[in-house]
């Protein structure tokens, strides 16, 4: 299976008669079975995936030109993406047994292009968490070392790709939730520009930060599925109507071209950073320079303001976004409640995890009368400053390079003891969400502990093409 890591390879194998969709799906299903201890999947759409594969095999046999762009792509989806007539719970008890009436725009688009959705994968409740330990379905474990977390919140997505149970996984990234688990699991994770992919059908955590992200082992696959999902959508007023490029065609890096890359000294020398991560990042920088590119340290004075501002703004939005889970129309309703107020209080108390409740409380506080200006208002100003400064840097440089996270994957249970420490670990990924810019996490090496180390590249708004092509270039460079 591992030889077929790109969709193109899979499609060639099908074309040459070496592979059928049914065989492909069965291989993935066997792999899901084999790795089930890791708890990546919360639901496997086994029969449905096989049926779809059969139908696609017939369709292809009858007319090879009739199949869609994602023919042969098997995808897992994070449990925050709506798929019509399938359950979606945000890994929360509050949505137990909830079935979506509609499909997210992104899901609808990939299904229309003949992608096969093989299952629903685990995550931190409503995307809140960096370890995937905050799920009603229990923790997902890192396939490289099951005593470690896979990262989060899209931990199930990262592990499902890491363990070859699917070709691509769709996650969501509000503060690093696609890139950080990709980094912890040694796979590639892209968070596109805010507004590149419709958020319609994505269970909202923080609306002005959330974006669907893509995890895979190959940049080609990411480019292919991104192109299908991206673009205008009448159901999302914040999505961009900017033309969607042909990412695959723009994937090849022009080796004559020399790029300018910025990095922050404050990031590389941050007190929280693991020395091996610093070393490997520095080595990568030297290697890139060795190819004739420019890589320079630039000052970025706001690094330590990013996390506090991010948590004020995202929890504020979350406190409002999660109000709809009230036990009235759908989802968990406390059986002990005897009136309206009790229905709210008890259903929500029973339904949400500690971490979700913590963020709702925090968000409610920062928006409340008398505190708004000091917290929410101030954090908005910080966001603006960070956006302006980042724009400035990217006017002079093609990319910003950073580690994905200050450390490698943590021990299971470690983060639960100190949630603030977990928040601070998002320090390098959050900037892309604060600014809405696209960023990608790539594996660059292995720590002495055996865990993967990743690097992150960030680009201007809608610079996904350049980001994907430099990623492909760097991956080849590191081979």
């Amino acid at each position, binding site marked *: 299976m591992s030889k077929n890591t790109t969709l193109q390879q899979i499609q060639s194998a099908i074309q040459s008669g070496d592979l059928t969709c049914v065989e492909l799906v069965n291989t993935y299903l066997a792999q899901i079975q084999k790795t089930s201890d890791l708890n990546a999947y919360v639901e496997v759409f086994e029969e449905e995936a096989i049926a779809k594969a059969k139908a696609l095999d017939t369709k292809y046999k009858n007319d090879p030109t009739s199949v869609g762009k994602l023919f042969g792509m098997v995808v897992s989806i994070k449990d925050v993406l709506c798929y019509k007539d399938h359950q979606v719970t945000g890994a929360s008890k509050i949505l137990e047994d909830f079935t979506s009436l509609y499909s997210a725009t992104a899901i609808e688009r990939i299904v229309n292009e003949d992608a096969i959705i093989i299952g629903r994968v685990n995550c931190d409740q409503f995307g809140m968490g960096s370890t995937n330990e905050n799920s009603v379905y229990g923790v997902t474990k890192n396939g490289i070392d099951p005593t470690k977390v896979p990262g989060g919140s899209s931990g199930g997505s990262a592990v499902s790709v890491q363990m070859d149970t699917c070709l691509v996984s769709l996650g969501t990234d509000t503060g690093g939730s696609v890139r950080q688990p990709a980094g912890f699991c040694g796979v590639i994770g892209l968070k596109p520009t805010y507004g590149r992919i419709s958020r319609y059908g994505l269970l909202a955590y923080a609306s002005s930060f959330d974006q669907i992200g893509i995890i895979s082992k190959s940049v080609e696959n990411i480019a292919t599925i991104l192109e299908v999902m991206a673009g205008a959508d009448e159901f999302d007023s914040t999505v961009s109507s900017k033309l969607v490029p042909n990412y695959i065609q723009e994937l090849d890096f022009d080796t004559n071209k020399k790029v300018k890359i910025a990095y922050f000294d404050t990031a590389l020398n941050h007190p929280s950073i693991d020395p091996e991560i610093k070393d490997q990042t520095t080595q990568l920088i030297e290697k890139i320079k060795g190819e004739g590119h420019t890589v320079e340290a630039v000052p970025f004075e706001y690094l330590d303001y990013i996390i506090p501002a991010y948590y004020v703004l995202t929890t504020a939005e979350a406190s409002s976004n999660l*109000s709809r889970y009230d036990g009235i129309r759908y989802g968990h309703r406390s059986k002990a409640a005897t009136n309206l107020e009790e229905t709210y209080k008890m259903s929500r108390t029973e339904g949400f995890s500690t971490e979700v409740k913590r963020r709702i409380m925090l968000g409610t506080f920062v928006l409340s009368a008398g505190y*708004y200006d000091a917290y929410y208002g101030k954090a908005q100003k910080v966001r603006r400053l960070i956006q302006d400064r980042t724009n400035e840097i990217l006017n002079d440089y093609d990319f910003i390079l950073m580690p994905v996270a200050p450390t490698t994957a943590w021990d299971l249970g470690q983060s639960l003891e100190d949630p603030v420490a977990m928040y601070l670990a998002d320090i390098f990924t959050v900037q892309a969400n604060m600014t809405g810019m696209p960023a990608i996490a790539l594996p660059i090496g292995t720590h002495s502990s055996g865990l993967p180390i990743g690097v992150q590249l960030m680009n201007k708004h809608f610079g996904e093409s350049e980001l994907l092509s430099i990623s492909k270039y760097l991956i080849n460079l590191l081979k």
Partner: protein
Amino acid sequence: MSTIYDQYETVIGLEIHIQLNTNSKAFCGDDAHFGGAPNTHVSAISLGHPGTLPRLNAQQIKSAIKLGLALGSEINSVNTFDRKNYFYADLPKGYQITQDNQPFCRGGSVMVKTINGERAIRTHHIHMEEDAGKSIHDLDPNHSFIDLNRAGVPLLEIVTEPDLRSGEEVEAYMLAMRQLVRYLDISDGNMDEGSMRCDVNISVRKKGETTFGERCEVKNVNSMRFAKRAIQYEVKRQIDLIESGGKVRQQTLNFDPETGVTSPLRDKEDAHDYRYFPEPDLPPVHLSNEQIELWKSELPALPKELYAKFTKEHQLSDYDATILTEERPVAVFYQKLAELNGNYKAVANLMINKIRPYIQEQKIHIQEFPVPVNSLSDFIQLIVDGKVASAMAYQRIFPKLIETPNETPLSIAEQLHLIQSADEDFLMTLVKEVIEKNPQKVAAYQKGKKGLIGFFMGEIMRASKGKADPKATNQLLGELLRK
């Protein structure tokens, strides 16, 4: 006799909610019309299902701007939406999308006729928001029912300055506002269907004082009559409280129309903290000057403009002009007719005395009135030219015209033998007859009892079956009586 109540002045500000008559809801494609079986005008979006997002209905923006332009408000070029967070069973998302910071319109005013003459009631601002669903508590002792058909229907909230001084003024303001939204065709303005609802802020102060008293807000007053009664009750309550040494506390009150009494819903201390913040799912709406100017040019003539035209250019009375401008379709019909026939007073009379009562009786729209306007113009001309007596025309020709709208008024008049005659021989015979029959009255007239002329005219008209031309008859009669 002056009472203690006369020493006080009432100060009232209104928050009026206007339900817009758009086809679909404010932020999704669901049917926005009134009625329908409960919970049938809903979708995943209006039910607040996970992952759904709002999308703005462009029609409601135009409605808001039209109203703002009609009130002379300032129109904001950058408009943003906010979330108002609170929990209620009929609020699916747990927040309402509204405008807190940058409403579409600020300022402006409505002219209202009061007992002290016409006054401008100023608008503080107009903002847009979505309606909540409906909670029904009286169907079952143990359960409440929720109908979400109304959830997400677009509303405009008009917030006035505290310029109103009595229940009568409030009623006049509400009527003016209802007239306006109907003219603009942005709402049906029906209070009984909840298309127009009103929260009333009431305070009292001693006459002559310049600062306002502590105010109470009476919620959801759903008819003008209730508004007047609620104000009456609340003003008396507040004055009694002050006079007995108490203090009015800032409160939100509920008005019970059955008892006519207001009762506290909540105190200021436990007022909701709505935690307003910018709605991240909706980008700001930018309006260009060109767009605003275009909408301005599309505005229909407003009641105050038509009133001015009818009283000044057409020389109609205040009474006539008020009735004719009350509803736009009537005003439009009148104008059409007045364009064909310049006898404005006669046109107004026909509109007010015959056409308007007829459509009200038949419960039809004025556009469905069966007689074509050119025929109505001919009808008026028959009277103006003295061919038919106006009483005869109204009583006999008009009903026939409605029955057979394709016949000309003239031919109907001829069939009914109602054409007045100015023929001197015909008239001379009639006049002579009457004079001969009433010698005593003739003598009395000649001795100076000039009022008897009316008696002679009446007799002649009766004898002629209404066909005698009154002008010619009068002249002839005068000549013969003087002899």
